[in-house]
């Protein structure tokens, strides 16, 4: 259609060229409408992207950008062998193992329960979603005080005989990341509830009817029908959780740890560490390298998930 009318418009020019020029002119407003994004993306997207690679080859500081020294792949070697960076990765792996299991497990259970009830599902959903919309800094302030040695949770655990004495968990080696995972579970499980519940509403009821005819009962139906049918939703949740989890910063910082994650780096995360490198030690090139390393790690993990879980599901 377009090329035909274009040929009519400018019969003297070569058809291919004329039609392209005509289509460009006809779609001119399209270029105008996308241009704000394109301009912003060139300046605040592509340029930083290129800069991040460039910076990795230099010893660079904000204050004296002229005094940058070329270090080759030195930053990369340092990053790959930096024990603190890997300590951060390990902390996050521990944190996310607990968080992803609990958040999506609780989300699945609450969704299954909400799916069963006829009245009040909306009310419970509204409540469960409340922490999702609340700010991380506020929730970590509350979580810190509730979990503190003098706080209500430990008092209750001592009263119930679960603990002998108050636990100063922030000084422990592994407890900080686990406690943060618990608080984050409380903040985010509502997302899983809602997404999985929507998935359950989308399952064809005839599947359950057919299974009931075959004599299947509640648990069998859940395991054989509900869970497999929810694979797309569970996969989506897992991918997003891993991407967000590896970039954790605010939680650790706002629950009161220093930018090095405590004296023994017990709560250090990769982003906390690259923040410390850039703004405490003024190693901007090195911090940029750590950011790239983390981005590659995230991209690799996401690709692995698509490769091994998605292909399984299809």
């Amino acid at each position, binding site marked *: 259609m377009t090329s035909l009318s274009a040929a009519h418009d400018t019969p003297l020019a070569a058809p291919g060229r004329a039609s392209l020029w005509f289509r460009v002119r006809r779609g001119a407003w399209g270029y105008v409408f996308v241009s704000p994004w394109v301009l912003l993306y060139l300046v605040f997207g592509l340029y930083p992207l290129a800069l*991040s690679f460039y910076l990795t080859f230099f010893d660079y500081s904000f204050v004296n950008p002229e005094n940058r020294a070329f270090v080759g792949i030195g930053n990369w070697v340092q990053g790959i062998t930096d024990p603190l960076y890997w300590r951060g990765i390990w902390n996050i792996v521990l944190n996310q193992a607990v968080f992803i299991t609990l958040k999506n497990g609780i989300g699945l259970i*609450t969704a299954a329960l909400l799916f069963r009830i006829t009245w009040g599902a909306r009310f419970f959903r*509204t*409540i469960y979603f409340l922490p999702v*919309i609340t700010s*991380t800094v506020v929730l970590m302030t509350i979580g810190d005080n509730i979990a503190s040695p003098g*706080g209500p949770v430990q008092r209750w655990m001592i009263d119930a005989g679960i603990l002998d004495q108050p636990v100063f968990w922030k000084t422990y080696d592994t407890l900080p990341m686990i406690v943060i995972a618990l608080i984050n579970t409380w903040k985010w499980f509502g997302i899983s509830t809602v997404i999985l519940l929507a998935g359950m509403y989308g399952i064809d009821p005839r599947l359950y009817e057919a299974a009931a005819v075959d004599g299947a009962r509640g648990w069998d139906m859940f395991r054989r029908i509900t869970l497999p049918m929810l694979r797309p939703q569970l996969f989506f949740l897992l991918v997003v959780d891993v991407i967000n989890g590896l970039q954790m910063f605010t939680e650790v910082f706002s629950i009161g740890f220093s930018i090095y994650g405590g004296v023994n780096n017990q709560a250090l995360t990769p982003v906390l560490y690259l923040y410390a490198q*850039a703004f405490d030690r003024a190693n901007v090139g090195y911090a940029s390298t750590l950011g790239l390393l983390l981005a590659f790690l995230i991209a690799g993990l996401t690709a692995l998930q698509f490769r091994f879980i998605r292909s399984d599901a299809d």
Partner: protein
Amino acid sequence: MLIKEGAVEKLKRVSPSQVLTYLILTLGAIVVVYPFFFMVNNSVKTGREILHSSWSLPSKITFTGYTGVFEELDVLLLFKNSLILAVSITLLNALLSALAGYAFAKIPFPGRGRIFGFMLLTMMIPGVLFLIPTYVLIYNIGWVGRYEALIIPSAVSVFNIFLVRQFMVGIPDELVEAARIDGAGEIRIFLRIILPLARPALATVAILTFMGSWNDFFGPLLYLNRPDRWTLQLGLLQFRGTVPGENSEQIWALTTLITLPIVVVYFFIQEQFVKAFANVSLSK
């Protein structure tokens, strides 16, 4: 009469397993709400009482936390700074993602497919990669300590354009074509036809963008870390470190003040909030 019969019917249908279901769900709701209760409860106690028993109900309700925090901290300035950022970022995103979304959905222009594909590709890049180079860029422009540092780079997000575009693809082409034949220009079509129809998608964009900016901590920490530019989140963190234990009710008053407006809005339009955040439709 009819209503009564229905009620009886409902009561009859409640089985022991249903009772158990409601019991677990209620227990879950209590666990979810308790921390909020803890916060509000402590905001009306004295700091001394919080130190001794942060779990107990107030022996006497006091508002020294609220009066105290207003004396110690310019709370209204924090609200103002947070609002300036959240409102301008939200308006810019709604406008620019509507424009780009419309172009990608309804205006055929050469290269559209390629640009859109490229846009989707950039959506996959983890944000952490941009952290340091963007800071270097903003530092060199001279925006550190200015609102522009957070507003301009966040003026439009690829995710929002994608969201609006997906919605606008569903608007029938005939509507747009008919208007074009009638001689309406693209700006007129955009304002008169597309914008009103795209309101649900724009509501999602607005809620997500506003909440993202309102709750953002890292951005203000990086770029606006000076007292006259503090946002609510950054102000809370900085304030927390300066409050002596016997005045800790001020912290709880501040967290309550930060949380309350959002929660009130949430309860009025919770369906839109849930839809926006979970990006799902919830019709049963």
